[in-house]
């Protein structure tokens, strides 16, 4: 590999520079029209032809660097020296590539100071096409091979390649767009850079007012967001703990049902819980109508505002807390609890002094997840918030509302990011340095201590009604799709479904005449493309973060988490800003939607992968390496088979989130690539709750089917139990 690979990549890169159009084509590559114009047509010309025939001299250094790489490969020299030269040549090529891409745009020089320095430029350039993309990929590959030859990354070209790929793609599709939009926080309407503006924007009274405490009035959105997030995090953690305790520490009979309950909200499109709550608790909802009818209690509007949003978020995010906590609750070693009991502690004392403190990292983690989910939530506050504004909705309306103030949106986005990071550090603080690892290789022969009666009763009293109510809520939502108009006309009907999903049989065959089919198939197609990419990138990133040591590892880890903390709307606008103009011009294509899905949902894949990976003893990888298994083979034969549950998780999550994401893609969808969620929102905005709910139900069924399919295809880990040797100290 070490000798052939750089040669192949240099040749591939040069071929791409000669035989593929350098710039993006309006009609795409598949038409084939470019084949005849590779030299003569300015639109279709290859990189080489652009330089010689069309006067784009600035591409020449890039191709020269690539040619230099080829020359280096052909000259026999030592491994290290070859690596060093390759590294220098390819890095220079990449730098030149990026520089020309940023400096020369649609109208020649893209910045005034460049014009001032070099004078007007005759040429201009449009978005990067196949030729340019391949040249860049080849340069990246050569760079990583060069690094590996010099002994970096354990001297393994695969590892070097994986790291540069992950780093470059995250830089390009997460860091760059976010940076583009955040710079706006410092700019005024005309794009003039004024750092003081950020302070001005952040100090606004609308954000920080405390008038709800003193003197009446509304509090600032920052306080609203924080209060809501803290309540939501506390509530979901408590409820999640109750469910987890019931599932592991009681003889509760409906554990399977509990499992279903945890999956449901995850596959639920946004708005559904909010809509169902309105159907039940709204002023025209069942509860109010019943109270009005039976006792003459005047209907109230309490559901709109803080209470309603909190309720919806508790329903939506408790399952996530449960999933975080169940592993932790199961992980508390029974031996420790038994030890406590032999030390004269009764069950209650054991629970409060041993079990609960041992769960502290899990509780802190669940709290963090609840907090972040709450501050990033957009669907529930917009449906139920009334005039209770939070940062995510404020950002949305700063962009789409009458204000149209990107700077303010960016400043608020920065604030949101700060909250998320703050929560992250507080969590680190709480968990602290203490060791909580209770899963050891020594077989835990003890039995889990049953819950003390008081705790058991409390947990059941909270959890069971909650579970019942969740099912009721879904039941109502489901029925809502089967009646004419909820709240007015309860005549059962299938109209909503036929309107959305009609299939007509005609002489020409089947016609998919339902209004939803177009968006439905687009969604399925794009989600099906995005899910495996999300899972693959996420797991590879997790693998290098856990298993490889390299400079900048912590930075990369932080960067992978970045897009998770930034609210969807900000990401959406950032993508339009960053990718609407050359060098990367992909707005209006399906590609940008897929990329948005992948990079927005990847963090969860990374987290799941890292958690799973750290349970697999590192010596297994090393054993494979000493047994002649190269890194990719180790990945395929050893790591991936042991990671099956994480793969399933990442695939499912990648698919489900792609189907249910809304705020991030609002700005990216086009008529050609309309998505299910954006279609549903339009229905909700137009008040067609029936069809919106019918569509949502269909999506839930689809997602459940896909989850089962993924489970079936990827399968279980062949060995349920892993020999977990005790981790010996390493000299």
């Amino acid at each position, binding site marked *: 590999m070490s000798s052939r690979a750089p040669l192949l990549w240099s040749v591939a890169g040069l071929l791409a520079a000669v035989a593929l159009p350098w710039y993006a084509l309006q009609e795409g590559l598949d038409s084939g029209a470019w084949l005849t114009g590779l030299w003569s047509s300015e639109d279709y010309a290859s990189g080489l032809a652009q330089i010689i025939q069309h006067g784009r001299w600035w591409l020449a250094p890039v191709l020269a660097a690539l040619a230099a790489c080829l020359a280096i490969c052909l000259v026999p020299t030592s491994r290290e020296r070859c690596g060093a030269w390759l590294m220098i040549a390819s890095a220079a090529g990449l730098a030149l590539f990026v520089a020309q891409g940023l400096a020369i745009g649609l109208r020649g020089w893209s910045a005034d100071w460049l014009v001032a320095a070099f004078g007007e430029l005759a040429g201009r350039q449009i978005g990067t096409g196949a030729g340019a993309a391949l040249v860049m990929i080849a340069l990246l590959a050569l760079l990583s091979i060069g690094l590996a030859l010099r002994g970096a990354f354990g001297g393994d070209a695969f590892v070097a390649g994986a790291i540069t790929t992950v780093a470059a793609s995250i830089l390009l599709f997460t860091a760059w767009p976010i940076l583009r939009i955040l710079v706006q926080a410092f700019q005024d309407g005309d794009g003039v850079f004024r750092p003081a503006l950020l302070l001005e924007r952040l100090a606004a009274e609308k954000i920080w007012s405390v008038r709800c405490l003193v003197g009446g009035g509304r509090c600032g959105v920052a306080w609203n967001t924080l209060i809501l997030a803290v309540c939501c995090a506390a509530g979901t953690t408590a409820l999640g703990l109750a469910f987890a305790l019931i599932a592991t520490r009681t003889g509760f009979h409906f554990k399977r049902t509990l499992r279903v309950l945890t999956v449901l909200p995850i596959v639920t499109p946004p708005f559904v819980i909010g809509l169902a709550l309105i159907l039940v608790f709204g002023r025209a909802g069942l509860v109010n109508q019943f109270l009005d009818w039976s006792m003459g209690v005047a209907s109230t509007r309490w559901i709109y505002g803080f209470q309603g949003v909190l309720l919806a978020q508790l329903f939506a995010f408790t399952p996530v807390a449960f999933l975080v906590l169940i592993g932790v609750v199961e992980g508390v070693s029974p031996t420790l609890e038994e030890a406590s009991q032999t030390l004269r502690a009764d069950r209650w004392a054991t629970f409060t002094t041993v079990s609960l403190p041992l769960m502290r990292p899990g509780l802190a983690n669940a709290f963090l997840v609840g907090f972040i989910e709450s501050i990033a939530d957009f669907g529930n506050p917009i449906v139920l918030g009334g*005039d209770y504004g939070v940062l995510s909705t404020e950002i949305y309306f700063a962009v789409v509302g009458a204000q149209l103030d990107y700077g303010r949106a960016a400043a608020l986005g920065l604030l949101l990011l700060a909250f998320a990071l703050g929560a992250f550090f507080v969590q680190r603080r709480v968990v602290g340095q203490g060791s909580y690892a209770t899963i050891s290789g020594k077989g835990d022969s003890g039995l889990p201590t049953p819950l003390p009666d008081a705790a058991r009763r409390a947990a059941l009293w909270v959890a069971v009604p909650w579970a019942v109510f969740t099912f009721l809520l879904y039941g109502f939502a489901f029925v809502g799709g089967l009646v004419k108009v909820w709240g007015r006309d309860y005549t059962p009907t299938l109209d909503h479904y036929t309107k959305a999903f009609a299939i007509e049989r005609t002489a020409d065959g089947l016609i998919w005449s339902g209004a939803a089919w177009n968006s439905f198939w687009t969604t399925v197609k794009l989600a099906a493309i995005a899910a495996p990419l999300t899972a693959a990138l996420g797991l590879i990133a997790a693998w290098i973060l856990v298993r490889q040591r390299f400079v900048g590892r912590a930075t990369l880890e932080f960067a992978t988490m970045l897009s998770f903390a930034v609210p969807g709307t900000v990401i959406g606008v950032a993508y339009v800003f960053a990718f609407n103009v050359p060098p990367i011009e992909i707005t209006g294509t399906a590609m940008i939607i897929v990329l948005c899905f992948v990079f927005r949902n990847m963090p969860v894949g990374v987290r799941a992968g890292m958690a799973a990976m750290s349970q697999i003893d590192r010596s297994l990888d090393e054993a494979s390496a000493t047994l002649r298994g190269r890194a990719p083979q180790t990945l395929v034969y050893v790591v991936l088979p042991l990671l099956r549950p994480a793969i399933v998780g990442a695939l499912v999550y990648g698919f489900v989130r792609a189907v249910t994401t809304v705020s991030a893609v609002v700005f990216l969808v086009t008529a050609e690539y309309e998505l299910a969620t954006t279609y549903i929102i339009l229905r909700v905005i137009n008040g067609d709750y029936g069809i919106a709910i019918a569509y949502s139900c269909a999506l839930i069924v689809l997602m459940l089917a896909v989850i089962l399919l993924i489970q079936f295809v990827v399968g279980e880990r062949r060995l349920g139990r892993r020999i977990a040797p005790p981790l010996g100290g390493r000299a």
Partner: protein
Amino acid sequence: MKTVWLGAAIGAFAFASPASAQGVVNVYCSVQVEWCTLIANEFQKASGVKVSISQKGSGETIAQLKAEAQNPKGDVWFGGTGDPHLQAAEENLTEVYKSPKLSELHPWAIKQNTDSAGKTVGIYAGALGFGLNTELLAKKNVKAPACWVDLLKPEFKGEIQMANPNSSGTAYVAIATLVQLMGEEKAFDFLKKMHANINAYTRSGTAPMKAVARGETMVSISFVHDGVTEALAGFPVKTATPCEGTGYEIGSMSIVKGARNLANAKKFYDWALTPEAQKLEAQAKQFQVPSNKATPVPPEAPKFADMKLIDYDQAKYGKSSERKRLIARWDAEVGGLPKP
């Protein structure tokens, strides 16, 4: 490793293929989805030009136009309240075009064109008024409000909903109307007093009418044609226009600056101003007043003739500076008041 990059490369080939530029027009459509679809299909039939339609609210559309300003992807922006169209004109996001059809239009539609120096045109108009839930009125035994001042009556305490002007153009039209009707000081006095009766300032301009339809609130300040749609859907909704006079929105259409398919965009623009195109509105169950004088108006539609309309100064109140000032004042004096 190779496979990963190969995958990326194949991905790049498979998707980096924007739509064909031949015989296409890209329309950003800010009216209701059925209307958008009808327009796309009918224009395609009439002209043979393929229409690619993307439905978005007017706020989202102008956000997108601004983000795409350097490299526009849309050709025509069809529909949506006039203010954002005027704002787009002001920010130089749209193109000047004088359609040969201009002469066939109502004066308010032409005025929109002249106010914007030719950058936008009116395609329909809708008056501001009240949405009323008849069942709630009957149950509480309250007389329906007929004038702006009726909204201050104590029986409407907590029963009125309007949108928040920070996010909604509809609410801004309401404020601008009151300012033109009463003078600025008195208008803000009125808004402050009405605050006691408001149960929520919603984020979206159409939400209050939906709330009326579903019995979530008794009265809304909305565009009256939205009420007709709800009534036809079977909800107990009635509309009224205030006796003192009311303002209106002018749904507009603009050509995007730097449109890639300028010729087709103009073709679409001309066609959209004909009666044939404008009668599709009624077909989509929308009841604004169409701008071509010759377009037949359905009987359910609220008639401008039956209302007292003010001479709404689109040029002044459509300006961003004026708009920012009024909204800021509303924020400071009304929006932040304690809830009663």
